[in-house]
């Protein structure tokens, strides 16, 4: 060991120089003290964590080594007691200093450990006092260069501070029962070493009067007093703490269990696991002999048991229910609180004499209860019930947090799905509509929800004919969106057959019938624009009447041909409810298609946008091209509605003939 080497080195050097210069040994002594201090500081402070017994063990080992070396030297002294070598005063001086060196090594190692223990839970004040103590101690070491009567006064503040510091024993509270016993043993041995060194060195000095160096120094005295006081205090404190240590251990366990319950939120444990932790923690905290939890997990009632059979639970519950008139604990009304079941002993074959039940609540709603049982009479004190209550509350919070988190994740997922649906649906509406030299076309569509039920599309039947459709699925949102995409399929399938509009509706009705539920329907208007004949033929299946502006008359009007929505009549009789119509177009005429979201849009006065407003926009802006006209309609619509939100899907398609 390096410190023993150092001791010997010091001894030798000290010896060689003895009597030459008075201050030289002091310098060596100081260098020795400082280097030891640095060495132990490094060694002990690098030790991991807060294992106090390990720290005490380090002192014990150092103490053992130093005492053994010291004893070996003493026995040599004894054996060679009569030889002339031992008569030599230089030899005696040397041996004395070796003993002293060993003591200093032991004291400094102990000092460093004590520092660690005292500053385990530090405050500013404590740290300040400790710094003063260390400076004074260093001062006393430096003071060896001066006459002792000046530095001698340092001993008083040092001792006072040492006593004050010795009151810091917080580490003791963290020892468990076993560790306390170990610590007591180690501290007793530490004190024994100190006593041994004290007696040994006093003896030597007593025998050889001229040994004056160092032992009287304030440094060693202060260090000796400090280490002794702290060791003695610690020993006493641990001794007095022994009987209560089980309580502290339990409190610590409760804190740990509490933490486990709270952390179960972050670790995404399921409700079942939270209940298991709750049961286990409550049994330990309440010192229960048996317990069970009844709770509803994912809609099913689950019973968690601890040291109790299902049958026993059943018997106890039945017994308590049958005793209701005796004002016993009411299982159906746990919310009222806790009542120890004094009469439980009446139940045959029952070993339990105390019972406590607490409701488990999640966001104020009762989801179950925990029941603790004990064989002793009045076995649950207020403490036990309170801590169990705390556990139950924490478990409730954990489960609630868990639930909320899964709901949030679920919601997020739905949002994401809807977002995808919106993206898919936006692809179902054409970005560019078919047109030819005879007309220009513009369209606009907006859904109230992420996805909607409005539909428009075009199809080039051949070089001269273009089919155009506008539609509205009853209802809104996802189901409407599904039917809308179905309608697109039907349109693209049937349009290429170049059917007359009436036949198109009849076939479309048959196609979509099967997939619509009883209360759903689809309204459409179907147009075929034929540029060779400059003719539009169209039919209406329950859709809003088409608005048509005739340049010649400079007037817009709604077509009034009969029609019936798709899916309303599901047999062949549908044909008699629809009729085709056609008209010839001229340059400047405007065909306005729209859904009822536009005409039925209302403002804050509950007025509807209506047919007249729509027609007037066209009349007043007939000179605009299709795109501008579409923009005008939408901006007028927004202006009319003001701040009130549009609660329907709305779509418009404008065809302007050239």
């Amino acid at each position, binding site marked *: 060991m390096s410190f023993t080497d150092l001791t010997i080195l010091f001894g030798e050097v000290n010896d060689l120089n003895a009597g030459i210069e008075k201050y030289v040994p002091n310098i060596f002594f100081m260098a020795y003290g400082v280097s030891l201090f640095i060495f132990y500081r490094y060694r002990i402070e690098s030790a991991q964590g807060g294992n106090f017994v390990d720290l005490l063990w380090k002192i014990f080992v150092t103490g053992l080594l130093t005492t053994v070396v010291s004893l070996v030297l003493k026995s040599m002294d004894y054996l060679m007691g009569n030889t002339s070598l031992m008569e030599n005063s230089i030899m005696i001086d040397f041996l004395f200093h070796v003993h002293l060196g060993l003591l200093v090594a032991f004291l400094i190692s102990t000092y460093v450990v004590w520092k660690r223990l005292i500053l385990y839970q530090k405050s500013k004040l404590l740290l300040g006092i400790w710094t003063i103590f260390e400076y004074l101690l260093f001062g006393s070491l430096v003071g060896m260069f001066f006459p002792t009567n000046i530095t001698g006064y340092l001993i008083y503040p040092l001792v006072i501070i040492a006593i004050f510091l010795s009151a810091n024993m917080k580490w003791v509270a963290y020892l468990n029962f076993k560790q306390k016993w170990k610590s007591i043993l180690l501290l007793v041995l530490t004190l024994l070493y100190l006593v041994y060194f004290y007696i040994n060195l006093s003896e030597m000095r007593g025998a050889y009067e001229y040994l004056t160096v160092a032992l009287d120094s304030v440094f060693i005295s202060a260090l000796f007093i400090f280490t002794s006081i702290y060791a003695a205090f610690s020993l006493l404190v641990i001794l007095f703490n022994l009987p209560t240590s089980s309580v502290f251990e339990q409190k610590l366990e409760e804190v740990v269990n509490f933490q486990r319950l709270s952390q179960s939120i972050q670790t995404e444990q399921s409700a079942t696991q939270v209940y298991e932790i709750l049961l286990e923690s409550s049994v330990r905290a309440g010192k229960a002999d048996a317990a069970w939890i009844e709770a509803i997990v994912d809609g099913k009632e689950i019973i968690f048991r601890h040291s109790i059979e299902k049958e026993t639970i059943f018997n106890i519950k039945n017994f308590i229910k049958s005793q209701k008139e005796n004002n016993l604990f009411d299982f159906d009304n746990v919310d009222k609180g806790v009542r120890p079941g004094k009469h439980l002993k009446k139940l045959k074959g029952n070993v339990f004499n105390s019972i406590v039940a607490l409701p488990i609540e999640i966001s104020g709603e009762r989801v179950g209860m925990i029941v603790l049982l004990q064989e002793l009479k009045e076995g649950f004190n207020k403490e036990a019930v309170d801590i169990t209550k705390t556990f139950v509350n924490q478990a409730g919070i954990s489960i609630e947090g868990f639930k909320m988190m899964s709901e949030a994740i679920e919601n997020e997922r739905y949002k994401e799905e809807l977002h995808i649906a919106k993206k898919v649906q936006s692809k179902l509406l054409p970005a560019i509509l078919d047109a030819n030299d005879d007309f220009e076309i513009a369209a606009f569509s907006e859904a109230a929800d992420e996805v909607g039920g409005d539909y428009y599309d075009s199809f080039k039947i051949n070089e001269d004919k273009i089919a155009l459709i506008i539609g509205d699925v009853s209802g809104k949102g996802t189901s409407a969106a599904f039917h809308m995409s179905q309608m697109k399929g039907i349109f693209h399938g049937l349009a290429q057959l170049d059917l007359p509009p009436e036949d198109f509706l009849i076939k479309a009705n048959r196609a979509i019938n099967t997939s619509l539920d009883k*209360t759903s*329907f689809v309204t459409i208007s179907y147009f075929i624009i034929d540029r060779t004949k400059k003719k539009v033929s169209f039919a209406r299946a329950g*859709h809003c009447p088409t608005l048509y502006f005739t340049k010649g008359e400079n007037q817009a009007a709604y077509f009034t041909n009969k029609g019936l929505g798709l899916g309303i009549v599901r047999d062949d009789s549908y044909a008699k409810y629809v009729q085709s119509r056609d008209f010839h177009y001229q340059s400047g005429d405007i065909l306005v298609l729209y859904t009822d979201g536009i005409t039925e849009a209302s403002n804050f006065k509950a007025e509807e946008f209506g047919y007249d407003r729509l027609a007037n926009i066209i009349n007043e802006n007939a000179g605009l091209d299709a795109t501008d006209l579409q923009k005008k309609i939408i901006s007028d619509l927004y202006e009319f509605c003001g701040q009130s939100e549009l609660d329907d899907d709305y779509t418009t398609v404008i065809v302007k003939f050239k």
Partner: protein
Amino acid sequence: MVQIDTIKENDITTLSINGEVDASSSIQLDESLGAVVSNGDQKILVGCEGLNYISSAGLGVFMSYIEDINAKNLKMALYGLNDKVMNVFEILGLDQLLTIVKTKEEALSRVNEV
């Protein structure tokens, strides 16, 4: 918000609808109408004098009972619709499938037709 009252006088059942039938209140209309139809009441009058608005969901309710009414050979007539509500029925084409008249007397005579 909608208020639907069912009154039975002799062999005639009258449903009077007051308020607005939108997506949520259409459920109430469905329940009332469903009860009358499944009850097998032969003559049904639907009073729409107090009906201010009907959405496509409300139209869907009427539409869904057309088949049942025809199959059971029940007589149903709607009366007292204001212009706006009437227009909604007409656009969809339901006026072709349902008996819709102006007054209660007309409605009575229609359901009493043999």
